[in-house]
C-alpha cells in the first residue's frame, strides 16, 4: 500500500510544479479548510438575525456587511462553502462510483446489457437538469439531500459513458487478451486490470466536474429548488443579493466571488491533474 501513497505523492508534486496547478491547489485547499473549520472561523452564527444592523456595508465588525435580516455575510459565505462541498463531494463521488460500475458493465458485458444501460444514460441526459430538479423537488421537497440526489443522478451518465468507452478500448487491448489467456476471470480482469486504468481518467473528470456541481447547487438554490432558506448557500446569497442589489452590492459579491473562485480553483486543479496523469498513462502504454 505504501506504493500507492508514493504514487499519489508523485501526482501532487507534479501538480504543484505547474503554476496554475499550484494556484488551483491553494484555492481548493483554502476552500476545503474553511469548509472543515467553518464552525471556528465564522465570527457570527450564520443564521442569527440582527435586525438593528441590517443591510450594512463592510466594516471591521462585518467584513462583508450584512443582509436584509442583519445576518453576517462573511459568516454566511464561509458556511455556504461547507454546504457547497457537502453537496458537491458526495454527489460527484457517488456519481463517479455508480457511473464507473455501470459503465464498466456496459463496456464488458453482453451487447443487450450495453444497449440497455446506454438507453438508461441517454434517458437521464435527455431531461433538462432544471426540469428534472423541479420534478424531484415536487416529489420529495427541497433539501440538501434532494440537491445531492439531483446532481448525482444527472451526472451519472457522464461518468458512465467515459467508463464504458475506456472499458471498450481496454477490452480489445492486447494485455487484456494476455490476462485472459493466462486464465484470469472476468471479475479479476475488471477489478484488478481494468479499474486502475480507468480510475485516473475519471478522477480528473471528477475534479473538473466539482465546479459545475457547485454552480448547479448555487443555481438550484437561486431558483429556490435547493437547500431550504435559513441554510446559508452561495446560490441563496446570490439570490438575496440580486433582489437587494440597489440597497447593497455586497451580497452579490459574497455569493458570486466564492463561486467564481471555486470554479477557477477546481478547474485549474483538474486541468493540471489531467496533464500530470495523462502523459504518464501515455508513456506507460
Amino acid at each position, binding site marked *: 500500500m505504501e*506504493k500507492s501513497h508514493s504514487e499519489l505523492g508523485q501526482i501532487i508534486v507534479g501538480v504543484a510544479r505547474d503554476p496554475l496547478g499550484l494556484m488551483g491547489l491553494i484555492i481548493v485547499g483554502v476552500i476545503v479548510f474553511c469548509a472543515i473549520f467553518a464552525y471556528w472561523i465564522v465570527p457570527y452564527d450564520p443564521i442569527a438575525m440582527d435586525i438593528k444592523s441590517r443591510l450594512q456595508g463592510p466594516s471591521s465588525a462585518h467584513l462583508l456587511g450584512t443582509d436584509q435580516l442583519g445576518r453576517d455575510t462573511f459568516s454566511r459565505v464561509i458556511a455556504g462553502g461547507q454546504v457547497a462541498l457537502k453537496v458537491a463531494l458526495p454527489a460527484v463521488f457517488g456519481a463517479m462510483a455508480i457511473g464507473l460500475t455501470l459503465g464498466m458493465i456496459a463496456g464488458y458485458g453482453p451487447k443487450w446489457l450495453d444497449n440497455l444501460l446506454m438507453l438508461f444514460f441517454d434517458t437521464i441526459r435527455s431531461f433538462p437538469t432544471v426540469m428534472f430538479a423541479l420534478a424531484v423537488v415536487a416529489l420529495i421537497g427541497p433539501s440538501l439531500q434532494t440537491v445531492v440526489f439531483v446532481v448525482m443522478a444527472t451526472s451519472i451518465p457522464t461518468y458512465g459513458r467515459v467508463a464504458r468507452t475506456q472499458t471498450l478500448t481496454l477490452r480489445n*487491448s*492486447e*494485455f487484456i*487478451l*494476455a*490476462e*485472459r*489467456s*493466462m*486464465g*484470469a*476471470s472476468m471479475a*479479476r480482469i475488471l477489478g*484488478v*486490470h481494468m479499474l*486502475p*486504468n480507468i480510475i*485516473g481518467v475519471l478522477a480528473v473528470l471528477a475534479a473538473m466536474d466539482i465546479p459545475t456541481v457547485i454552480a448547479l447547487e448555487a443555481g438550484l438554490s437561486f431558483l429556490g429548488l435547493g437547500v431550504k432558506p435559513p441554510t446559508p448557500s452561495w446560490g441563496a446569497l446570490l439570490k438575496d443579493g440580486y433582489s437587494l442589489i440597489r440597497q447593497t452590492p455586497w451580497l452579490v459579491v459574497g455569493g458570486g466571488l466564492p463561486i467564481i473562485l471555486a470554479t477557477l480553483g477546481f478547474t485549474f486543479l483538474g486541468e493540471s491533474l489531467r496533464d500530470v496523469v495523462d502523459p504518464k*498513462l501515455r*508513456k*506507460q*502504454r
Partner: protein
Amino acid sequence: MTDTLLEIDHLSVDYETGRGDLKALRDITFDVNKGEIVGIVGESGCGKSTLISSILRLTAPNTRFREGEIRFKGQDLLQASERHMRDLRGADISIVFQDPMQTHNPVLTIGQQMLDIQHRSKQSKADKLAHAAKMLGAVGIPDPEARLKQYPHEFSGGMRQRIAIAMALMSEPDLLIADEPTTALDATLEVQIIERLQELQREFHCAILFISHHLGVIAELCDRVVVMYAGAVVESGEVREIFHNSKHPYTRRLIECDPGHIKERARVLPTIPGEVPDLANLPGGCIFRDRCDQAMARCATEVPPLDQLKEGHHAACWLNHEEVTT
C-alpha cells in the same frame, strides 16, 4: 501410454463474414509430444493466430468450429466447459505474445502483475513475490527484487519479453505457446531470447509450440516443424528432414529465400510471386497452384492429400504421388 500432449485432429475452423464463410483452417492435423518443441511457419494470414486462439478457445465471436478435435492430454478442448478452459489457461497451457510492448498492464508494477498471475496459488504474498523474483532471475533480469517494483514502461522491449516468458513459465505449464515472440525485437535480442528459451525448456521440460516467420529461428530451436499455407498444413516433419529433404514446392521456396541461419534474418517472409487464394471462395485443386512452378494438370482439379511419405514426414503435393507410383 503415449507421450502425446496436444493433438490437433482434422481441425476445420471458419469465420462467418459478410462475404460468406472464410475457411481460415482446413483439416489441420499434427501432434505435439511432451517436452517437444514444434515450430509453425507460414506467411501472414495463413491461420497461425486462428490456430492458437482455437487451442486456448479465445476466438473471435464470429468463429465457427466446423470439424475436428483439439485434444490436450487426451481431452477434447472444443467440448470442455468454459470453467475448465479457464483453469487450463495460464496453468497447463501458457502463452507469450508477439508484441512485448503491449502485453503488460501499463498501470500495475511488474511485481503486482506477477503476484496477480499466481492467484491460484495458496502461498503467502511473500512467497509469491520470492517466486516472482526467482523467475525474473531465471530469464536473466538482473536485480529482480528491485525490478519487481517497477512499471512496464521502465523496461526495454527485450526485457519485457523476458518478463512475459517468466510469467508464462511461472506455473510450470506443460505447453508453452509462443506467437512470434521475437518478431518485434532486433536480431541480437532475438538470438538471446531464443537461447534463453532453449535453456528454460531444458529446465522446465515443457513442450513449446513456436510460431514464427523466421525459418532460421525454427531451424535453431525446434525439433519438428509444421508448414502452413492458406489455412492448411502443406508439410510437416523433423526439422532436419524438412530443411534437407523437403517434399513440397512451397517449403522449398521458403528455404531458398531464407536459408535458415538464425543470425541472418529475413524479417518478413520472402515474397513468392502469385496470389494466396481467397479463403472465402476457395478454388478446387491444390491451393498453392497459382504460385507453383511445378504445377501439373492434376493439380487444377484434385486436392492433394497430406500423405505420410516416411515415418513422421507428411506433405501434400501431387509430385510425391508421381514418385510413389513410379
